[in-house]
């Protein structure tokens, strides 16, 4: 799956209407039409499929210049899988050579270890000092969250529900406060939480690199770990993990294949952790004082924005916490996973208008269920000013 040829028909169905211009954060900066989905798709077909243009540096730049936010696919009147076309193109354009293959094996290791570099973590600060790693690269915690968790977290008293918790790589390795907050709110509300063994990264970052094989390997592990669980839901605190497990995982495999079927069976159970709690209803009333917050809706939530809204609804129950909406919560923050590390000026340009909106909202903190958005907005606002929505609820349980 995710071979370019498989998208030929979809590409030929592109009407060229150009409505994708309205949605694309990259286009909004440069206003060059080759950076829209319609331009990129034409180029991918001409250069990588039909051989009408030689594959040069500029083709690689245009294919790389995409956040994979998926906004174009959601705006497209024809519903074309425009983001997947870019992934498939990246897969073909993967660089070769020893440096690339070393980088690839490091990535694989990182993803297999749920975002934690293990002993390689020491290389991060060294790399930054030597100027080999970007200064904005986040620094992982010394010890990952899951290293200290049992296989099952049991609430005091009778369990009201049982879930499997897919702890995202960021919550496991970078934002341990998010992981602790999720643990706290689930347990406080009588949810029994399974932390199945054998899970890996959801695979979305692998797709962004065009590493389709790696994404498939990771998906196989996750399917094996989660399919065996007898649970009411598979919850995760990370929007991108929801997107992958719910909407993308089955599309990694041949239709009707056993993997695709298993992924399809799993998909309806996958929920954003806040949305699950909202559906279950809080059994414990938050009493602590809240703060005012504004929501930044991650781009990967475009297909399930109501889940993010449901998670947000929980915060209305926190005393004195006030929601101060910004003008366009769904406008991109510029992060795009690790896109911002390679495209500094472009990402900063996108972030600038987001920061203006945040300021105009006059909220004390920004809440967002995406760790990449959190990290990137936090670099500008300060790490304490951006939180996971459930951290506000967890704070009110103290």
């Amino acid at each position, binding site marked *: 799956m995710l071979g370019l040829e498989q998208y030929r028909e979809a590409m030929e169905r592109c009407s060229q*209407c150009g409505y994708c*211009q*309205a949605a694309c954060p990259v286009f909004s900066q440069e*206003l060059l039409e*080759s950076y829209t989905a319609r*331009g990129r798709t034409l180029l991918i077909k001409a250069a990588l499929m039909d051989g009408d243009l030689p594959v040069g540096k*500029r083709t690689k730049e245009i294919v790389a210049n995409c956040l994979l936010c998926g906004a174009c696919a959601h705006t497209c009147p024809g519903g074309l899988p425009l983001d997947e076309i870019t992934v498939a193109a990246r897969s073909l354009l993967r660089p070769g050579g020893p440096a690339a293959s070393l980088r690839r094996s490091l990535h694989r290791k990182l993803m297999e270890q749920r975002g934690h570099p293990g002993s390689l973590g020491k290389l991060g600060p060294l790399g930054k000092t030597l100027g080999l790693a970007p200064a904005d690269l986040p620094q992982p915690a010394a010890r990952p969250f899951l290293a200290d968790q049992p296989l099952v977290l049991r609430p005091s008293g009778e369990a009201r529900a049982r879930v499997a918790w897919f702890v995202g790589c960021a919550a496991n390795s970078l934002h341990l406060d998010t992981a602790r907050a999720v643990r706290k709110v689930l347990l406080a509300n009588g949810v029994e939480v399974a932390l199945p063994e054998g899970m890996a990264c959801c695979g979305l970052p692998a797709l962004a690199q065009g590493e389709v094989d790696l994404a498939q390997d990771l998906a196989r592990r996750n399917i094996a770990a989660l399919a065996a669980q007898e649970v009411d839901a598979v919850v995760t605190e990370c929007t991108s993990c929801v997107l992958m497990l719910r909407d993308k995982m089955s599309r990694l495999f041949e239709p009707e294949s056993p993997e695709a079927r298993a992924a399809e069976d799993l998909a309806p159970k996958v929920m954003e952790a806040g949305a699950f709690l909202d559906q279950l209803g809080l059994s414990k009333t938050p009493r602590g004082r809240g703060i005012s917050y504004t929501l930044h809706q991650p781009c990967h939530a475009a297909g399930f924005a109501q889940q993010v809204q449901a998670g947000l609804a929980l915060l209305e129950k926190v005393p004195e916490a006030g929601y101060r909406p910004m003008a366009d919560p769904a406008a991109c923050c510029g992060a795009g996973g690790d896109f911002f590390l390679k495209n500094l000026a472009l990402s900063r340009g996108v972030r600038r208008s987001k920061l203006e909106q945040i300021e105009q909202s006059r909220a004390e903190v920004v809440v967002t269920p995406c760790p990449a958005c959190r990290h990137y907005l936090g670099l500008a606002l300060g790490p304490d000013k951006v939180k996971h929505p459930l951290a506000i609820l967890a704070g009110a349980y103290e």
Partner: protein
Amino acid sequence: MRGLAKDLSRLVGPDGFSTAPEDLLVYRHDAIGYFAQGDPAAVVLPADTAQAARVVAYASQNGMPLTPRGAGSGLSGGCTPARGGIVLDTKRLKRILEINQGNLTARVEAGAVLAAFQQAVEAQGFFYPPDPQSKSVCTLGGNVATRAGGPRAVKYGTTGNYVLGLEAVLPGGEVIRTGSACVKHSAGYDLTHLLTGSEGTLALITQATLRLIPKPPATCTALAVCPTMKMAARIVSETIAGGVVPSMLELLTTASLAVFNRFVSPPLPEEGEACLLMEFDGTAQEALRQAQEMAAACRDMGAIDVRLAPRPEEAALYWMVRSRLYPLVVSRFKRVVTEDVTVPRDRIPEFVTQVMSIAAELDLAMGLTGHAGDGNMHPTIRMDEINPDVEKRVHQALERVIKAGLSLGGVISGEHGVGLHKAEFLELELGREQIALMRRIKKAFDPTGIMNPGKIWPPELEA
């Protein structure tokens, strides 16, 4: 080509243009996907009028064709570089320069996006009604250049009715300002409205002064499902004759009901041949009363189902679907050809009858949608396969549809412009004398013929 890149870099800076074939690919198209035309040497994105003027002067000095472009969302081929040369992309001229509350006017740069402008204006309680359905991306400069319109034309007219003044670059590079910010203006030839609708063939429009009106406080949307296309057409013409003027009145095929049903509940019956999507505006009471009267009239005339959507959120869903129907339909077929023939509103039922018989005689799948309230119809031919026989029949159908419209006192284009695709039919509407006069006007503006060559009239009439 190195010379060109070097020159352009001097004129607009290294980030203001591209000559890379990878970037130029998309600039061969407008929103007609199957139709790429010409091979541009460069796309140039000036940052202000001064840069734009330098580029136009450069093209003129070097005898290079220059094709102005907005969002590239047009449907006539008008912004495609038919003869190569420079595509002048206006999208970086995107500032809203002024919203004058005291004078009810606004001044914008040509590349400002319509939806962003409407949002800014409405935030201050004003209204800029023209609404081509590509409003989320289309630019005001493109709207002015094509005299674009949309559903609201039935009550509020099209872009042409709102242009008070323009800033434009003449082919020699001189910048002129036509019209004014005054509502009345009687001095000299009306160059503002000569440039409006000139499709980039006379000058490059860089700014526009636009008229605003107060925003109606409320709207009410209504949808009627009709058993036959003829009945829908009759409802339209009798409503208008009866003095009820909706703010939007759209005729759609029943196929669109399935798309509405993805968003609205309870589902609409997917029956009959046509449906009418309407909006009424005024005070909340007036809007609702008009919608109710219309609903009663539709029921009396035999509509299968009539639905009112007085809540703005629900109404917005219907109109969001409406604005996406065309590209959605296009994405379902191998090829779709759409026309925008417009007829006087009382002739709509006759036009509908004729179009349906043309489709039947030539054995083509033709849908008939349109901004029926203003007589602007979009006969749309849908092709599942393309071969010389089909293409021949499609061309015959287009010609016959256009002739049918003209015989009823209609025009060949209501809102898309002539561009490339309708150039061969222009003479049918205007006759040789008018085209010859237009050619003389063209010559006076653009003696060397660099501005958007190949558009509006066929090559044989270009001399």
